[in-house]
Structure formats: C-alpha cells, structure tokens
C-alpha cells in the first residue's frame, strides 16, 4: 500500500509557540508512514484577525497557499492547527462561488482555481492510518495514564464545513489515546471554548474559561490533558497560573499535544517530542504512569503464581 501523501501546512504557531506540536506531528507521521511534503514559500492563513476584518482578504491569504499546493502537484493538504484548517477549508468552500472567487483572485498573483481538500492531521491519523495500525505500532503503551481529551471549539465546527467526527462529542483523540493504552476519563467540556485570543485583550475572560476546563479535567481524575490546538494548549499551559488564580485553586496539570503522547507511545526519541517546551511539566504524571504500570504488572504476576 502506498503511503498517504499530503502537502503539510505547519501554520505560523508551528514555527513559534507550538514548535513541539510541529515536531511531534512530523515525527509521528513519519513513524506511521504518512508522507508530509513541505510547502515552499507558504504564508500565514490570515488566522482570526483577517476574517474578522474582511472575508475576501482572509480567503486571499488562504487561497495563496492552496495555490502553492496545487503547484506542488497535490490536491490534498493537512495541517495540525484547527484555526489554519478552518481558514483553508472556508476559503476553498467560498471560492466555489463565482463572484467571491473573482474578487479573491484579483488580489492574487496567480489565480486559484480550487480543488484542494485540507484535513486535520487528526483526521488523517484516524482515517488514513487507522486505530488498528496505531495500536499495532504502539511499543510503549500509555497504560496507567489518565487522559482528558480536549478538542477546543473549532476542531469540528461548523460541522457542515469540517465534516469529521461529532461536533458536540468528538471521539477521535479519545479513540487514539485508548488505542495506545491510555485511560480516557469522561471529559464533558471537550468542545468548550478556552478563551482563545481573548487572552490578549481580556485576560480575565480567558482565565475564567480555561480555569473551568482545568478544574473539570482534574475533577474527572485526569493526569494530563491532551489537545490538538496551539492556542488551547497555550491558554491551558502557559496561562495556567492565571487561570488558577482566577479559580482560587492550587493544583497543576500538564497540557500536552496529543501527538506528543502518541510519539511517546510509539517509542520515538524524546528530543523529537519537545516535552521540555511544556510549562507544566508532565514528568510527574509520566513517573506515576510508570509506577502504576509496574504495580499492575506485579499484581498480575502475583495472581499468576
């Protein structure tokens, strides 16, 4: 079977605040034989600021990148970032309307004709690689690790645009984590907002919303939170102290990218996974996981003898 091939759009944060997401994504895809092709001269998708100001401008920024993908001879792309995913998919949809497309193309050096489908890395891992293959490739199961899977608000929304997983109760990360041996705790706030970019303008709002997510994860008994969004990760991890202050609580819970945990389970070298980039270190959680695993092994050996 030929390996699935995608143009890879890392997104701006992939080169900055979420380097560890980019690195771990590349490492995991390599290990699972997903062929990611780097895009020459890619540029920002416009992120939130562009589409809040002008839909044409926003679409032009994304369409420029979609054009590069076509020029690579590919019509399938992937990105780890949900915000980039939304912009690339929205541009593709909106460009189908003739009048809109013409206005966008006026802004571009080379007109974009359409025809690229962008999927999240998460979708590719579930659909192209598959849970069975992921389970089979797992060499260091995450047994004993309690995980809360947090998807954020836009990973699966709006459903008519994303067309992947359940938009109210997504399960993709839950299933991957379960396949790799982790224990997924019921986490009811899977698709609740973390406060997103309000962290800049209204820190209090983000602190309150993120605080609620952290508290719920801890109450559910999670050792770690996994997420698929750079902004969610930053709010839950980098801003955890702000959130805890708003809550008046004192605990700590690491927030990792799901690809980092996947890399760990696949036995990839730690240096490729970037755990040192995480503010709230997962070391303790990993240590506890090891202990839980040993105890389990002991008890099962004990029962055998």
């Amino acid at each position: 079977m030929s390996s699935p091939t995608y143009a890879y759009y890392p997104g701006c944060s992939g080169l900055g605040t979420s380097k560890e997401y980019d690195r771990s994504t590349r490492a995991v895809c390599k290990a699972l034989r997903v062929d990611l092709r780097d895009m020459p001269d890619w540029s920002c998708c416009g992120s939130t600021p562009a589409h809040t100001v002008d839909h044409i401008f926003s679409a032009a920024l994304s369409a420029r990148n979609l054009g590069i993908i076509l020029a690579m001879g590919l019509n399938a792309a992937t990105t780890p970032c949900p915000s980039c995913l939304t912009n690339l998919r929205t541009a593709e949809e909106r460009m189908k309307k003739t009048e809109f497309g013409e206005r966008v193309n006026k802004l571009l050096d080379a007109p974009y004709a359409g025809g690229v489908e962008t999927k999240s890395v998460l979708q590719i891992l579930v659909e192209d690689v598959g849970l069975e293959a992921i389970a089979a490739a797992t060499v260091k199961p995450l047994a004993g690790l309690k995980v809360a899977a947090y998807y954020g608000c836009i990973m699966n929304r709006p459903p008519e645009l994303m067309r992947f997983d359940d938009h109210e109760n997504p399960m993709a990360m839950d299933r991957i984590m379960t396949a790799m041996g982790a224990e997924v705790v019921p986490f009811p706030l899977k698709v609740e907002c973390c406060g997103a970019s309000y962290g800049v303008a209204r820190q209090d709002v983000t602190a309150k919303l993120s605080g609620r997510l952290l508290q719920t994860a801890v109450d559910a008994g999670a050792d770690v939170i996994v997420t698929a969004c750079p902004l969610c990760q930053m709010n839950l991890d980098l801003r955890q102290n702000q959130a805890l202050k708003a809550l008046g609580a004192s605990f700590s819970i690491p927030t990792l990218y799901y690809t980092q945990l996947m890399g760990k389970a696949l036995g990839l070298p730690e240096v490729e996974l970037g755990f040192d980039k995480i503010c709230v270190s997962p070391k303790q959680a990993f240590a506890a996981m090891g202990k839980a695993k040993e105890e389990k092994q002991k008890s099962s050996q004990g029962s055998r003898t």
Partner: protein
Amino acid sequence: MKIGVFICHCGSNIEGTVDTAAVAEAAMAFPEVVYAKDLMYACSEPGQDAVIEAVREKGLDGVVVASCTPRMHEPTFRRAIERAGLNRYMLEMANIREHVSWIGKNREANTNKAVDLVNIAVEKLRRDRPLTPKSFDITRRALVIGGGVAGIQAALDLADGGKEVILVERTSSIGGKMAQLDKTFPTVDCSSCVLGPKMVDVAQHPNITLYAYSEVEEVSGYVGNFDVKLRKKATYVDWAKCTGCGACMEKCPSKKSLDRFNEGMGGAPAINIPFPQATPKKAVIDAEYCRQFVKGKCGVCAKICPTGAINYDMKDEIIEVKVGAIIAATGYDLFDYTKYGEYGGGRYPDVITSLQYERLLSASGPTEGHIKRPSDGKEPKTIVFIQCVGSRDKSVDRPYCTGFCCMYTAKQAILTKDHIPDSQSYVFYMDIRAPGKLYDEFTRRGIEEYGTRYIRGRVSMIVPKNGGLLVRGADTLLGQQVEVEADLVVLAVGAEAAKGARQLAEKLRISFDNYGYFMESHPKLRPVETNTAGVFLAGCAQGPKDIPASVGQGSAAAAKVLGLFSKEQLENDPQISQVDIKRCVGCGKCESTCPFGAIHMIDFRGQPKAEVIETVCQGCGICAVTCPQGAVQLSHFTDNQILTEVEALCLF
C-alpha cells in the same frame, strides 16, 4: 354544434389586464361559436343565470367559460349547464386568471393569450361527447386505523351513527399517547380518567369490532368498496381465553422487556398488559425477551395461566374485511432527541423526554407517581425544562412548530410544584405559544402562582456536574449567559410523523408532506379529506395538534363518512379509460402500468383483450400513453382532443 363562450371579468382580477370584450369578439370568429359574451362574475348567481339563459335561448350544445382555474369552479359551471339541460361534460374552461391576468401586466399580450386559450377550449369542446356516470352500491362499514383519541372518537361517532366500524390498533391496547399522559392542560384533568370511559365504550359498543395488535397489510378497491387485509400479529396468548388477570406478568422471570408504555422507564415482563386500563385488557408476549423464545425453555406463564391461554405456536393471521370508507388516525411519534449532541445525545440518564416525565408523574407509572430521577432514584429539586427540542429547528429538519409543547411544559412545571413543593422549575423557551381557550391564562398561572421561571433562550450545553447537570444557555432578554445546576432535565420533544406513516400512505394511495404527515385535500376547506375518495384523516397523522383538535377532527372525519354512507349509491367519474377492442392486441402493457389495478385481461373469442374496471379506474391516463396501438383512450381527454388543442395553438 352550437357553442357559447363566456368571458369572466372576475371583478378587476381578469378585466384589469385582459380586454374581455375583445376576447368575446374574437371568439365569435371561431368555428361553431354562435354566441360570446363577457360577464362581471360568471360564478355568481346572475352570471350562472346568464349562461343558462343563453343555452336555452340560443340552443347551445356546449359552453366555454374563460375564467379562473377549473380546480375552483368547474363543478359550479358543470352544475349550471346541467340545470340548462346540457350534459355536464359539454363544458370546457379556459384559465385566463391564474394562467394569464395574474401573471402578466401587458394588456395586449394578455388579451392575445386569452384568445388563444379560448380557441383551444373551443376546439376541444367540439370533440367532447356527453358522458354519463354509472352508479354502484357501497359497503356501509368504515375502517378506522389507529386507536388513539382521534381514532376512538371517530369510531364512536360512526358507531353511534349506526354504522359498523372496524378499529385497527398497532399496539396491544387502544388509548394512544393520551393514555400515557398523567394530566391534561389547561384543566389538569386526569388523562386516563377522561379517556378511560371512551375506551370502555369502544370495547362494549355493538357496532365496533376492535383488532388490537394488528396492522393494515394491504388496501385495494375504491371509495364505497375497499378490500382491506389486516395482519393480526401473533400475541402468543389466546385472547378468547385470556381474562387479563395478570398472574403471568407477576411470575414471568424476564422483567427486562422494553416497557413501551412507560417510554422505557423501567422494564416490563416479557408477557405484559401495558397498563391497568388497557383495552382490550389482554396479555401479549414480547418474543424478543421471552425465555421460551430466546432460550427455548421456560413455560412459566403457560403453567401459571388459569385459563390455559398461552400458545407459543401462534402465528400471524391475515383477516380480510370489506369497508366503504377509511379514516387514517395513526397519530405521531416523538422526535429522537439524541440528535442533539449539546443535550448529551442520550448519554446522560437524567436528561429525559417530556413523555418519560409524564410517566414519572403518573400514579400508574414506574415510580407510582413519585418523581424520582433515573440515575439514582433521588427526588429532584431543581428541574430544567427545555422547549422546542425537535421543533422550529431547521438544523434537524424540523422547521415546524409542534404546537402543544409550550402547554404541556407549563403543565408539567405546575405538577412538579404540586409533587415537590420545595422544588424550582426553569423553562428555557423560544416563544410561549398558547393560543387556545384558557391556554395563555394557564401558562400565566404557572409563572405567577407556581413560580415557574421562564428564561427566553436556547440551551447550548448540558454537562454533568457534582452528581447533577449543569445547564448553560442564553437569556436573550437580559443578553446574558445563564447557568442552572439542575437535578433533572426534561426535554420538550416535538412530534414527528408516526413510524410507518409513509408506508401506510402508499397503501392508502394518499399523499404525505416532506415530514411524513398525511396531506389533507385543502389546508383550509377540506381538512379531514384526502385526494383519494373515501379516505379521511383525523388527529396528528395529518400534523401535530392537541387533544381537543384531534377529537374535533375525529368527529369531523366521522361526519364525512356518515355523509358518504347516507347516499343510496355512489356515482363514478365517467372521465375514465376505454379500450377499443378492435385495436387491442392483448399485449397487457396497460395492465402492468395501471397503478390502481383497474385493468384486467379478458378472453374475447379466444383472444386476450384488455378491459377497464370502470369503478376502479381513476382516469389518470397512464394506460392511454402506454398502449402501443392507441387502443386505450381516456374519455374526455382522447388523443384526438389533445392533438387538436395543440394544433389550435400552433397554427403556423
């Protein structure tokens, strides 16, 4: 042939953009037209009189009326020329209102088009032949499908009117949704107490034959003479012997059968009588759960039954009945709320439907009328009601308003306060729709006297919290988010067409709308009729409605049937197909394409020939276009007539 042409002004509806006098003048030039006149209102009494007078004075053989659509007034003018002494089929109409004056503003162009349409009508009329309907006998027995309150009312009214009624009910007892309700709004009457006597009447009425646990298998025939096959499903209990004592239910070792009557709240024994007032009060075995069927051994009920009614070998039975009219009163089903992921999609046990809550409130329900939430049996103190779950929501393909949820939610909140005085109810609503006698007063009472808190806005999320449920929504009047920590959430699920409604509609040859509700013949003026003669509608099968409206429709449908049955004989429509036996080669294509089974093959001097069964033929014309020989012709719409119309229009 002498033809008269009448052009109607329809006030200014037609005259406003059509020169009717000019049309009349032009009509005089058409062949065989001896008289043409414009009339102010052709359908009015003076208008009809003018037509009748002209027929008599000018000795007309046929009449063209150019006015509105024939769907509106063809019967009117047919009767008028009949009064003038002509055959009623010697009439043609030209639709110069809907097809001309209402759709174009150019008076000259409109006038020209009107002249063309009159020309077509004249040419067709020249080839019309007088037609005479045939009379046939009718079976004065009615079939009522569905034993909910609408069907019960229809059956009782028909039976009291002296007609035989066959009432078919899919489940093992009549009563429908109303029997599941605890109380009814706005009077807070006990639902089963007001319905119970009617159910008993059905059981005891000498004119009503009740087939419970039965379904309609097949319908053929036509108004006055339907042949219906009913499937009497195997109950595995001989109902002639069963006394309804209930001993079998107590001893049955399998208690996890789906308790449909209690909406799945708690299990039922595999042999079950659904509720104390069940009519008929007979037991049915659920073969999916019965150990005798699942494991092949048990037989406890057979041992315990004092009358020896249990029969594990029972098979479905087909019963054939002849009826003259059918009333479809098949009710509704509840919207599947698990489509709403934000309400938990069925993952939270303490998020229940309004009908489940109704069973919790009912003294004959699984909790004997004590409100206990499903997860831990605790009495809830804070209850959140969410309205419009599967109503007024395009995203789940339910854009319509169910109409009665606002009222039952108000009632349930009031009853909650009665059951648990220290409780607090919240209602998330979009609009309060309470248009009915004493309805708005009732919802106000809930708010003012029972302290129900109404929050105008939708709920965005329900998540478990501290053993309860956190309900988050918008308060659109305050422009704020609100969060309520609830012990129980009740979803006011909307109504949708009953399961199997579409299949039944196909059997009855009636239409249904996009959502599966049966189509009435006219939304305002023929609300209980269908476009299939002899088939009538009642209750929620036609669209969601509350109990008084359903009862009203039950009676209305019964009145329609009684009116039909009061006729000595029925007349068929003579605009039907005829076979020219000389041309027919007996290929049988018409027989296979006829959707009504109105054509059968006969032996004519050793050769196969097609023959039309006149009382069954609906005049659709499919056979006429199917026949390769042109041997089948539809009376009043023959090939020649249609071709002449085309030629009249396309002279050049």
